[in-house]
């Protein structure tokens, strides 16, 4: 380039030089940006924390930011709030992890915790001075990985049976307690465009979550998906669908869809959680009651999966971690936990607070009763849970939508989960 003399070539060369320089600058800028981001996520101002969750729907998506702002003000920091859809939540978190910009606070679904904790990207909360005293043992267990606590739930949930009181009264029926009652009531209440019962057998974790109360109550476990008890549980669901007491569409319904069906009067009963209560209570002409999930025999206790999200703190630097822990302390305090549970449709993870809430709010009695015996989904399998869950919901779908006999579907699931 130094040999440029006064020829007409100069223009061409200068153009080339400018182009090369521009491209180099652009590339440098691009690289510089990512470095800047990483630094910001890692060691930047400790007074601005980042938070991520997957609440897209009201009331949770408005209640949570409110609560966060209150706690941020109390600690003296600001919180950048971020919501991503459930399906993209884990990929998003992983992407942030790979650029070393883990959010300081993340509210993650409890069965995902062991996987995330295993990566080493989360701060052990037990070492940071947060206590789980007074919380339900099962939710404490769900937040633990290799004897350390990585996640603590502000509130928990479970599943119960919602029933339409008017429909039951018209038919002269009482809410079912056993599987036989359930089958009989569902058959009797199916009429016209109304099905007896609605549940979600969708091909995601939600489908497994809905099936697990029946699976566990029957006495089956996740380690052996093709046990006779598991076959019994799946046969119950299959008979409901084959007997037309439940719509064939259950395999496409999410729990929100199930709630819509119940609210529209298309189902006399539904399996769902307490987070639907704020929506259901808004529909004044809907007269509904809630009972625990029916059991195979009168002496059995319902065992439901423990639902709910746990707060985690991402590793960054001591100053940021300290602030994040301080915010978390506020979020998990008894009054904030109670506020969140009341407004977002959760059961406080604090046992005493939950009992107090059940006493003042009869709608929650069934849920509170079940939470005491609820089981963490990852208790049996830990990081292997997602794989077993996928095998399970595939078996449910193959049986309900494809006519595969329950035994055969569950044997295939066991083979897939064990592989």
């Amino acid at each position, binding site marked *: *380039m130094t*040999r440029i003399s006064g*020829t*007409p*070539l100069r223009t*061409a*060369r200068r*153009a*080339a*030089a*400018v*182009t*090369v320089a521009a*491209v180099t600058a652009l*590339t440098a800028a691009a690289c510089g940006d990512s470095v800047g981001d990483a630094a910001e996520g890692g060691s930047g101002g400790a007074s601005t924390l980042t938070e991520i969750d997957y609440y897209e729907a009201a009331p949770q998506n408005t209640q949570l930011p409110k609560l966060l702002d209150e706690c941020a003000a109390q600690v003296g920091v600001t919180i950048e709030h971020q919501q991503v859809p459930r*399906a*993209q939540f*884990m*990929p998003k978190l*992983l*992407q942030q*992890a*790979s650029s070393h910009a883990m959010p300081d606070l993340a509210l993650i679904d409890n069965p995902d915790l062991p*996987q*995330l904790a*295993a*990566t*080493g*990207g989360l701060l052990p909360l037990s070492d940071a001075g947060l206590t789980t005293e007074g919380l339900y043992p099962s939710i404490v267990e769900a937040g633990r990985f290799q004897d350390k606590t990585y996640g603590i739930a502000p509130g928990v949930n479970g599943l119960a049976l919602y029933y339409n009181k008017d429909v039951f009264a018209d038919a002269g029926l009482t809410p079912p307690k056993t599987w036989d009652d359930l089958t009989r009531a569902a058959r009797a209440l199916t009429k016209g*465009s109304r*099905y007896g019962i609605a549940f979600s057998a*969708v*091909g*995601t974790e939600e489908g497994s979550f809905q099936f697990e109360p029946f699976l566990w109550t029957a006495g089956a476990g996740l380690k052996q998906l093709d046990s006779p008890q598991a076959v019994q549980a799946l046969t119950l669901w299959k008979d409901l669908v084959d007997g037309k007491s439940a*719509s*064939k*569409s*259950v*395999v*496409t319904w999410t729990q929100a869809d199930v709630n819509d069906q119940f609210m529209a009067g*298309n189902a006399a009963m539904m399996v769902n959680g307490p987070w639907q209560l704020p929506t259901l209570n808004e529909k004044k002409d809907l007269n509904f009651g809630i009972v625990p999930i029916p059991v195979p025999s009168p002496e059995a206790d319902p065992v439901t999966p423990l639902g709910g999200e746990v707060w985690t703190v991402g590793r960054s630097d001591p100053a940021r971690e300290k602030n994040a822990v301080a915010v978390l302390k506020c979020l998990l305090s008894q009054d904030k936990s109670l506020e969140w549970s009341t407004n977002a449709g959760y059961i406080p993870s604090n046992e005493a607070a939950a009992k107090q809430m059940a006493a003042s709010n009869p709608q929650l009695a069934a849920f509170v009763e079940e939470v005491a015996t609820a089981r963490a989904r990852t208790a049996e399998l830990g990081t292997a849970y*997602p*794989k077993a869950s*996928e095998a399970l919901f*595939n*078996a449910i*779908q*193959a049986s*309900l*939508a*494809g*006519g*595969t006999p329950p035994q055969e579907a569950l044997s*295939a699931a066991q*083979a*897939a989960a064990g592989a």
Partner: protein
Amino acid sequence: MMAETIPGAAAPAGAVRVGRRVGRRAGLHVGRHGGRSAGARRSRGGTGWAAFGFIAPAWLYVAAFYVYPLAANVRMSFQDYTVTSFFTGRAPFVGWRNYEAVWQDPAFAATVANTVLFTVGSLLFQFGAGLALAVFFQRRFPLGGLLRSLLLVPWLLPLVVSGTAWRWIMETDSGVLNQALMQVHLIDRPIPWLASTSVSLLSVTLVNIWVGVPFNMVILYGGLQGIPAHLYEAAALDGAGAWRRFRHITLPLLRPVTAVVLTLGLIYTLKVFDVIMVLTQGGPADSSQTLTTFAYDLSFQRLTFGHGAVVGNLLIVVAVVFAFVYLRATRDGEGRAAA
């Protein structure tokens, strides 16, 4: 004449050729200014730099946005890339183990079969319906233009919107499709369009055909416009009926356009993702799973990124093979036109 206009649609091949031509012309131009032998040599070097400067952005773009991701995907398919890898940046190489795992996945064979059925079914009916509509709209009739533009709607709607609408339409109990079919007594009980392992693939294929018809119609209609009317007149004078005119004039003269439509359609159909994702998420029980949704499931639901990369690579290989077929087909067309 006509054959030459069609390969013009072949952007990649055409662009390279035009680029070379322009380059040569520019070289001559600069050379003339440069003067005699020494100047000419220097100018050639200068043109090299200038050319490099102009090509560099394109190359950098291609390298950063196409070559790098592809190479990274190939590398990932040989790694045990887990959730932990994102934090540590470490993923051990495992040779062909990911490929074996995908091959042995109980869902793999059915997924390949689904992909073939979905692609062939979509292509066949999209093309058939597109051609029929294109021929139909060649006739002039009142409101023909309006009707033709209305038929573009499926193409213009965002796929998530039309997918969601179809989800409602195909709902088993309250969907308008089942209601309508029952009203006219074509069926006596509702068909679980999206809720049965035996029907779900058919349902997503039907919706995808609906989405793809406008594309086929528009391109084929354009091809039909290029066939000179006097050929039909001459054929009619010779006593050829409508079917013979279609068989011996329309079809042969439409062949280059057909090749373009089918290969592009094939590549588009192979990579269809949103339609299936919105309608069935590949379910129930993987019954409408194709390679694209399978790759997504492996990577982003099961979080086995190595396995997802394997399926991604497989898709790329298939698409590249057909892209070559496409380039080949269009190049042949141009060659014939030049001869």
